[in-house]
């Protein structure tokens, strides 16, 4: 069988139906498939069983504060961009039990919540999203303290990346240098052409999965088409952000009048932080039984847009919407660089699409640059 195993770095082609045998191979390796599927009136990420669960023939039309599903006039398998979910909900779950504390004999015991981490295969990770995962790696694994649950899930995860050939209207990954081609770090990198998938093999596990698939070396015409589509995608981004000197720009404009204007529109609803694939803030809640004998510490996603987020005795550090929006955007595009050596934005456009009043982070940067 060795001659049927492509090398790492090789580009191969498969018929579209052969994606099913990739899925089968992943399941045989013990992976739970997580991929795009129709749900809640959108394309969301959930457990899938096979190709039938993918939103084949569907697409999404997005604009600021707008998201609509539409039928395509072809049977494209990955003919849409990113929805309200991101992969962080599987690596950094919205609700995560940390430990159980039981009162006993006038003291208490502390028992960490240890579970066999899930073995996920992420199907359809876009370039922006792969970069978002790398950013969260730095947040949760790059400092003096690591998040052990994130680490276990991340180490086990298989990434089947999908290169975007049809960017959405709120996409700006080209500005952020995170797409449309998914960067390194995937196990398999897929580009959808009209009749075939071109697949780049990115890892040893990727090779192993491909050994059970009917593949052939990608032809010159296929590679050429792939490159043209990606170049075309890069040029057809719906949005653009000038990222030059970003940290300095924001640090020097902490009192810019634009913050007052955006605060008049912002509802401080926290949607942008929930859909953002890099936002990592969390709170820990105390969940007790009625007697207070058994108590669980449960980590939940939190947002810098909530009033109590910055609460200290005597008041809140950021009492106004202006200060909270400024904190969020300054964190994403300035202080994130100081903290983690990378911008906190990947250009996926989710915060623009899912903002109920259509606040557009690219437009805000343009305004602060004084270019409107």
């Amino acid at each position: 069988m060795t001659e049927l195993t492509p090398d790492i770095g090789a580009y191969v082609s498969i018929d579209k139906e052969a994606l099913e045998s990739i899925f089968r191979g992943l399941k045989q390796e013990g992976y739970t498939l997580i991929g795009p599927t129709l749900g809640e009136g959108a394309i969301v990420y959930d457990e899938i069983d096979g190709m039938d669960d993918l939103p084949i023939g569907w697409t999404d039309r997005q604009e600021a504060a707008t998201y609509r599903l539409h039928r395509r006039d072809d049977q494209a398998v990955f003919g849409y961009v990113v929805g309200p979910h991101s992969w962080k909900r599987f690596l950094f779950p919205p609700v995560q039990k940390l430990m159980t504390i039981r009162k006993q004999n006038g003291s208490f015991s502390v028992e960490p919540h240890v579970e066999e981490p899930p073995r996920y295969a992420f199907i359809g990770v876009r370039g922006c999203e792969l970069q978002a995962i790398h950013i969260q790696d730095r947040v949760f694994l790059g400092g003096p303290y690591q998040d052990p649950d994130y680490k276990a899930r991340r180490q086990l995860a298989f990434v089947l990346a999908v290169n975007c050939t049809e960017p959405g209207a709120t996409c700006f990954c080209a500005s952020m240098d995170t797409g449309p081609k998914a960067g390194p770090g995937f196990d398999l990198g897929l580009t959808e052409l009209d009749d075939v998938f071109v697949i780049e093999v990115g890892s040893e596990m990727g090779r192993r999965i491909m050994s059970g698939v009917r593949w052939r070396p990608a032809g010159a015409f296929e590679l050429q088409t792939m490159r043209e589509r990606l170049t075309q995608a890069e040029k057809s981004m719906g949005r653009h952000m000038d990222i030059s000197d970003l940290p300095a720009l924001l640090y020097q404009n902490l009192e810019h009048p634009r913050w007052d204007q955006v605060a008049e529109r912002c509802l401080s609803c926290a949607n942008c932080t929930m859909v953002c694939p890099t936002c990592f803030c969390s709170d820990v809640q105390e969940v007790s039984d009625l007697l207070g004998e058994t108590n669980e510490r449960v980590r939940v996603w939190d947002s810098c847009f909530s009033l109590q987020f910055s609460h200290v005795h005597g008041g809140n550090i950021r009492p106004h919407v202006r200060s909270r929006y400024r904190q969020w955007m300054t964190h994403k595009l300035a202080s994130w660089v100081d903290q983690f050596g990378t911008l906190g934005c990947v250009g996926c456009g989710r915060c623009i699409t899912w903002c109920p009043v259509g606040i557009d982070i690219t437009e805000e940067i343009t305004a602060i640059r004084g270019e409107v």
Partner: protein
Amino acid sequence: MLDFMNPSTLSETMSRTYPMLMHPARITRIREEAYAIATYELAFEDESVRLSYHFQPGQFNMLYLPGIGEAPISLSSDPAQPGVMGHTIRYAGNVTQAIGRLQVGDVIGVRGPYGQPWPIDQLRGQDVCIVTGGIGLAPLRPVIYAILQQRQDFGRVFLLYGARTPADMLYTDEFEAWEKRDIRVLQTVDRAAPTWKGHVGVVPMLFYHIRLDPRKTVVLTCGPEIMMHFVIYEALARRIPKERIFVSLERNMKCGIGLCGHCQLGPTFVCKDGPVYPYAAIEPFFAVEDF
């Protein structure tokens, strides 16, 4: 990309090294300090935890009560005796109010210590000017203990301390001992009582009663932010460089380990990059309202 894929086994990864686990500690002593403020001395129940625990002046612990939650509290005791962890607590939030209902022998969960300490080594050979208000003296008391431990290593030492009323002052029964060891204590209150012999007025005004040598003075300050703004103003006015002014900040610290995001101040996380900062490091952000 980070390289984290290989090293540890899963069981190792998910082992009891989870950084947010707390250890039970028993209250060994409670000392009333002022109205609604008391110092709780805690000792870990587990001997190996107790023996391996050390802290530096300015660091804090997360204190936990089952069914209530966690709160970050500074260590206010002598770092040379780490087996006894002193926390001076004002009954303010839900956790500290619940701690106020506890008695000697009751158990509190403790994890820590966290945060950057006061720069004790940088103080050696220097004059030290400690400026603080109210409960802000708590995280600075370990500095005084550290200085007293090797008093000859330090130059002149001032404590400029203020509170709302004389009854609100902490640790007053120790002042005499400190003064005997050549620590000059200047006190001020907002509202005096009949027997009050100290100053009346805000803390930064105490600068006008001492003479500092800008070539060799380090200023340490902790208190309400508005007080610290004026302390910094007075220190800079005396030509003390901003690299030698240290402040201790309060933010909403939930995890203590830089993962939960709550305590950000610009590029820093107060829980791990602070709470003690050289003023030079946070100057651009300290004065920004609501930042």
